[in-house]
């Protein structure tokens, strides 16, 4: 359900976690929670305040070192608490238990309303976070805040684009598609020329739910109208014309066997990316890093082009993934924790260089995003292309989007229904209606006043 940036890592974590039953997870949590608690012993006035941070990418270690070097009163203790959903599961359990949550936690944007609704997040607006508003791209700030209430500080985003194998395109004489109609034509051409090759993979797993959401976002679908300050009202419209258009389009590609249907984040999928089975990879701003690590041997063969459009010459964009730092409601040091969330990356060029060069983060911080270093950076994996000349305009072209406070349920339901269609048990045209029906019924049961 989450669109983690490092699915290969995630796969290891997930399977390790699979072993632990629900009960065991609780015990483990208690064990980790007991040691750190809220950080330092708050009784001691001397010495720096220790802030415990949960974040998942390994390169984060250097970012923390950078922060600790430049701050005297606050020190960060980093914990790798699992990637994406694994971390959320632990966080939700700790919040439910009333103890064991970290001070600062890395959360993807789509999780924010869910955790906020269960009173798990601190309003950083009270501690000066509103000053950062101008530093971030507008759509990202809107996802992280609700008016003057600030529930997260955006870090990175996932503006979508199309990566493609330049060598294969040349070999099969394919044109780089600028519209989805063209994309389908080229897909047919490729598959005809080589039946073992596909234009791309239509992921059928939970990871891909975010991918599908990004594509419907681009198509103009706005499934939720939600604001934490207008509870219990929520608008749910998962089956509008734009969403249906996207699902039927991909359903058609699947039916005609023009795309593969392997789950993302499986060895088969990585293999497809590196063996030339897939000619394109439609992904997000973090995708280049992901691709260059799972398909390292294809270095130099890939290029990046803008996401195909529904109308020729259009400039509609969508986002897949992206994360932020939130302060949990369990923190004993709200002021210092807010400072950590704001300044771990913030507008610090030193921290961002680590993030960009080593963790392939896509910055949402305006000065970095639109700064010369990021924009003109050349990537060897993409044959020296300045790929951010594609991604940065995409990031700036994304329009606002609300997430629901039950995103996991919505993603899971979507995944199940898409799975049924993929397995030929239901029609592609009914997927959106089925999801809409289930999600609205869940939302009503959870006490929301749903308008469709």
């Amino acid at each position: 359900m989450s669109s983690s940036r490092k699915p290969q890592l995630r796969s290891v974590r997930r399977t390790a976690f699979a072993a632990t039953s629900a009960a065991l997870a609780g015990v483990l949590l208690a064990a980790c929670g007991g040691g750190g608690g809220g950080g330092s012993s708050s009784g001691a006035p001397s010495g720096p305040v220790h802030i415990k941070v949960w974040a998942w990418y390994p390169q984060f270690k250097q970012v923390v070192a950078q922060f600790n070097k430049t701050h005297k009163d606050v020190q960060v203790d980093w914990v790798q608490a699992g990637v994406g959903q694994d971390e959320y599961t632990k966080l939700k359990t700790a919040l439910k238990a009333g103890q064991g949550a970290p001070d600062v936690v890395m959360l993807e944007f789509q999780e924010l309303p869910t955790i906020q609704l269960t009173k798990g997040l601190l309003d950083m607006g009270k501690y000066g976070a509103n000053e950062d508003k101008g530093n971030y791209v507008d759509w990202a700030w809107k996802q992280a805040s609700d008016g003057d209430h600030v529930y997260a500080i955006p870090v990175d985003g996932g503006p979508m684009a199309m990566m493609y194998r330049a060598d294969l395109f040349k070999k099969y004489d394919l044109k780089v598609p600028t519209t989805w109609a063209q994309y389908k034509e080229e897909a047919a051409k490729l598959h005809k020329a080589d039946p073992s090759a596909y234009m791309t993979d239509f992921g059928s797993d939970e990871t891909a739910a975010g991918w599908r959401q990004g594509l419907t976002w681009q198509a103009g679908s706005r499934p939720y109208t939600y604001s934490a300050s207008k509870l219990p009202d929520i608008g749910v419209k998962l089956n509008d014309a734009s969403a249906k258009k996207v699902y039927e389009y991909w359903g058609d590609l699947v039916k005609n066997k023009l795309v593969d249907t392997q789950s993302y984040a499986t060895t088969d999928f990585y293999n497809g990316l590196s063996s030339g089975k897939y000619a394109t990879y439609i992904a997000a701003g973090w995708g280049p890093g992901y691709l260059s690590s799972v398909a390292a041997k294809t270095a130099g063969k890939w290029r990046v082009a803008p996401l195909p459009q529904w109308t020729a010459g259009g400039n509609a964009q969508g986002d897949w993934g992206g994360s932020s730092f939130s302060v949990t409601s369990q923190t004993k040091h709200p002021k210092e924790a807010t400072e950590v969330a704001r300044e771990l990356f913030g507008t610090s060029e030193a921290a961002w260089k680590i993030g960009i060069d080593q963790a392939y983060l896509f910055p949402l911080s305006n000065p970095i995003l639109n700064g010369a270093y990021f924009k003109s950076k050349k990537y060897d994996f993409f044959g020296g292309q300045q790929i951010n000349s594609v991604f940065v305009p995409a990031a700036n072209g994304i329009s606002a989007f609300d997430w629901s406070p039950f995103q996991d349920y919505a993603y899971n339901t979507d995944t199940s229904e898409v799975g049924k269609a993929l397995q030929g048990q239901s029609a592609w045209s009914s997927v959106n209606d089925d999801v809409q029906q289930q999600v609205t019924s869940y939302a009503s049961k959870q006490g929301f006043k749903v308008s469709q």
Partner: protein
Amino acid sequence: MSLLRQQGSTATAPPRAVPAKGLRTPVAGRRPGGLSARTRHKGMGLLLVSPFLLLFLAFLVAPLCYAFWLSLRTSTLVGGDHFSWFANYKQTFTDPQFLSGVRRVVVFGVVQIPLMLGLALLGALIIDEVTSRLAKVFRMTLFMPYAVPAVIGALMWGFLYSPTFGPVNSISHSLGLGKVDLLSHDLMLTSLGNIVTWQWTGYNMIVLYAALQGLPREVYEAAKLDGAGQLQTALRIKIPMISSAMVLTLMFTLIGTLQFFTEPRVLEHSASSVITPDYTPNLYAYNLAFQYSEFNYSAAISFSLGAVVFIGSYIFLFVARKRSGLK
């Protein structure tokens, strides 16, 4: 092996209250001002049992009570929390997602359990009969999968089932049979059944083999004198005599099947369009709690599942004991 001891005790008379009697007789009379010997021994017993009792209360009884209490409440994301009596249970037994999960594990069990236990019995009878070095190797090899943690086993099979790398696929491909997707909707239960059978056959075989080893050898001689062949000895003597061990393995397998979780959870990763969040009742309960924040409903489902397992096993044991003529 604690299992075997347990199995033994079901076959022989239950050792009820024997130690207490034994202890009581030698010490008699009262000490001035002290407690009676009986009371003191009782106190001592309690003291000795207390570490177990504490753990039992803290890690079994208390969580059970808490889960039950949770299952009687309903807390929604927006509506708040209230006591709802048995509404969650009512929902459980009318929930199509839960019921389809139950149906799935039942179908799974009906095919997989007899197959696996049959194989285990066959293996046990063979290694009991053949006393060569080869039998030892055979025994070890069959038992080996049990030593592999379930998660690792499922992961490994996930790779073997892979449509690109899996040997099954390349073999069927080279035979011209085309692509076999072992992770597809139609074959998933079979694929899962294969993993479980692979993992547990050896374990069950060892239990049955140990029971066979415990049988008195004279019976076989008598059978031989009466002209029984090996097959007849196996069918008429060995199998009936180890029926209690068979009941035991069946019981463990039934419980395991109803709680099916690890293998689908691991394979879910590579086939999530097939293994939905409600694939098995246990998986459903897990996802309800940790992804949909429906802790109360999840508790009700877990509790219902637990009750079904408990009552089911009890009835099964009761019936099986009568039928197989066990005490």
